[in-house]
């Protein structure tokens, strides 16, 4: 059926004789992203309206800021993880890194260091960790899942050891980050929104971001097209870990202590939020808007459950169920879309599959 497409274009060429590009149309991947984002927006509104009808305090500006500051650290981590997932990578060590950075910063404050030194050391830790992950993944081809799973344990343990198992109190270090108000908005909210906007611009409006999409779509193509793929992978991990360290600082500031367990389990919430927002673990897909909405949905649902006085034990049940529902519904929708596409371009699609899997179709099942 691709023949008909060509025909149509050819006639258009002969008859139309255009001088400029056709009017701007949304790129297909943008419309696909909208399809992911829209249900999230609807879910967000539905949950908010229902909760508000039960407890009118829910939709107050105060509670909105509450929700946002509660997910501030999560959101900052998601911003970094979105880059990694789109680039076909993953980092499971971010939660533990948050704990570790929080503890180290608290200890430094306790030892009397200034804000500037503490922030520099914390971000330096992030850069260092990211460089190690990136270099090992890029040059030794170690699967990032396993590598950072190891990192998760190591950092979690280091944090506990350094803090001697108890939160390290912080007197007034980075007070303004945790409890200040900038432009009339709470500081964590400003930091969260700022991070998301900058990350969004970097992802969608720079060559760096486009290269990340290309890398996640096909590493071979990206490399052969002349992109220094390894360098890019190192950059992605460094960016992500630096953001995680930033999240660690904010975590410490918000809790006014370096809690060695503060980041436990965050890595999974991060991935859940990004996937909810349309990022694919297989790479090449995702948007910053989607990821931000994923964070917002998780935060809103958690807050709504509190407002509805649902026992805390049910919280992860609900968020987990939302995630399962989201991925299954997306998968069903995509299978449908693919099969309806297949009906229209049957031979081409099948030929493409065959070209990709010459061995499978040629030899049949090797085990039968």
């Amino acid at each position, binding site marked *: *059926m691709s023949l008909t497409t060509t025909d149509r274009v*050819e006639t258009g060429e002969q008859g139309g004789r255009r001088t400029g590009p056709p009017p*701007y149309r949304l790129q297909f991947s943008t419309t696909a992203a909208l399809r992911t984002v829209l249900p999230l927006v609807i879910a967000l509104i539905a949950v908010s309206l229902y909760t508000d009808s039960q407890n009118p305090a829910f939709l107050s500006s105060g509670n909105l800021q509450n929700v946002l500051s509660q997910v501030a650290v999560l959101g900052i981590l998601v911003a970094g993880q979105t880059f990694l997932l789109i680039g076909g990578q993953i980092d499971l060590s971010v939660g533990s890194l948050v704990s570790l950075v929080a503890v180290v910063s608290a200890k430094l404050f306790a030892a009397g260091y200034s804000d500037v030194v503490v922030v520099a050391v914390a971000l330096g830790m992030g850069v260092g960790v990211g460089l190690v992950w990136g270099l090992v993944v890029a040059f030794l081809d170690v699967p990032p899942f396993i590598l950072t799973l190891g990192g998760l344990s190591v950092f979690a343990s280091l944090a506990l050891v350094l803090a001697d198992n108890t939160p390290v109190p912080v007197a007034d270090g980075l007070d303004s980050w945790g409890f200040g108000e900038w432009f009339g908005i709470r500081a964590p909210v400003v930091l969260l929104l700022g991070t998301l906007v900058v990350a969004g611009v970097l992802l969608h409006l720079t*060559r760096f971001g486009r290269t990340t*999409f290309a890398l996640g779509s*096909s590493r071979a*193509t990206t490399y052969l097209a002349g992109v220094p793929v390894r360098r890019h992978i190192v950059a992605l991990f460094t960016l992500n870990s630096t953001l995680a360290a930033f999240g660690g600082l904010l975590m410490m500031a918000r809790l006014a202590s370096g809690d060695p367990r503060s980041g436990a389990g965050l890595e999974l919430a991060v991935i859940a939020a990004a996937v909810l927002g349309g990022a694919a673990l297989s790479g090449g897909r995702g948007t910053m808007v989607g990821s931000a909405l994923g964070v917002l949905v998780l935060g809103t649902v958690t807050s709504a459950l509190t407002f509805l006085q649902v026992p805390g034990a049910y919280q992860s049940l609900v968020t987990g169920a939302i995630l399962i529902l989201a991925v299954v519904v997306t998968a069903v929708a995509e299978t449908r879309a693919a099969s309806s596409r297949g009906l229209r371009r049957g031979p081409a699609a099948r030929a493409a599959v065959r070209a990709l899997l010459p061995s499978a*179709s*040629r030899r049949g099942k090797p085990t039968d």
Partner: protein
Amino acid sequence: MTAAISCTGITKGFPGVLALDDVSITVRPGTVHALLGENGAGKSTLIRVLTGAERPDAGTVHIGGTQLRQHTPAAARRLGVRVLPQERHIAADLSVGHNVLLDAVPRTVLGTVSARQVQRRAQEHLDALGLDLDAHARAGDLTAAQQQLVELARTTARPAAVVVLDEPTASLAGDEVAVLFRVVRQLRDRGSALLYISHHLHEVFELADRATVLRNGRLVHETEVADTDHDSLLRHVFDRDVAHTRLPRRVLPTDAPVVLAATSVTLPGSTRPVDVDVRAGEVIALSGPSGAGASDLAEVLAGVRVASQGRVLLDGAPLGARPAAARAGIGFVPSDRKRNALLLERAITENLLVGPAAKDVWHRPFASRRTAWEALRAGRVKADDPGRPVRTLSGGNQQRVVFARWLLADCRVLVLDQPTAGVDVGAKFDIYAQLLELAADGVAVVVVSSDYEEICALADRVLVLRGGDVVADVAGDRATPDGLFALESMPLETR
């Protein structure tokens, strides 16, 4: 006597190409039937239809008198069809024995697999075939040729009514070819029907009883091998009327500077160094059967692969790895377009603006779209909307998107591996014209191709490779399809 395998009136089309047009073929038990034809003549498609991997648009396949209704490889296997594919499929971490009996593992009473029995049976089978292989060895440690023999043993591990051999000698050396021929004769004497696809006419005369020639998807000749000779078969493989069409081109100035030079580069499988000079505006074709080193040489020239010895100079400076080479102006068009040249699920714009083609640090959606649209015009890609996914384009247009990417990157050398594979005939000539225009603008073009007509239409110079060596350097105006075919198919010993 019923035919072991036969097909009647097989027609099979792909978008833009009619791969098979009303082809009928019959192979009797206990005979070797050779299938001949140029690359793209339809041999592979016919094999895929006969073995159930492809459903024909029209026509029927009978195996041992039973009609193949379900067109799946499993159905064909049940009827006794075995295939020795062109590429290697070896479980590298299993032993040779397990690889041989991969689809026929002997079971104990309990239904478990006895490793000892596997090794013993496999060794018996290997010995019976006269293969000097140890069933206990790790398959991944074998040479490519030995692995192919392991696959041959697997193909014949269970009695087979029909055995299909798809260019089995491509990666074999002299002794191993003799082993292969012995196994083929053994199978024939046991009553199997063999379908033998080969590039090499001398193999046909040595082995086959009957020969069928395909050209452009049509069966053009079928004969008893005893009734024919070398020249007559060659005449049927190549249609001389259309074969020798050299496209008009600008005369290459004698003082055209050398852009890219490879000196003393050693390719895998060879010890002899290779020297290549590519001049600005020159079209060099690298010809040779798969595994002969043509693709390897192209990859060395593009910086994808670093030669174990020797060096490559671009304008006198050593060539870096692929990213550096791309920045320095070497475009590369890989042979596996879908996997290595395109971001299949991304938009055309994104496929154009990747690597050095994306010059701006910022991505401006509107400006990118305009750039992409202009690049599509310049590259003559027939696509109305650069925001569409690149997978919706036809093969020829996809290939032109890849070209356009390198035009945007201002490349000075363009290295192409099988640029017209899977592209329909009309689009092929558009691509040739485009490449020649590029050359006229001073771009040096290196084309790896197994399509002799393509080489003869395009090349200023042809390098013929065999086993990692350059065996001939032919001027483009003197190259003919059958001449190149002869150079490539001469037995390695007589070189």
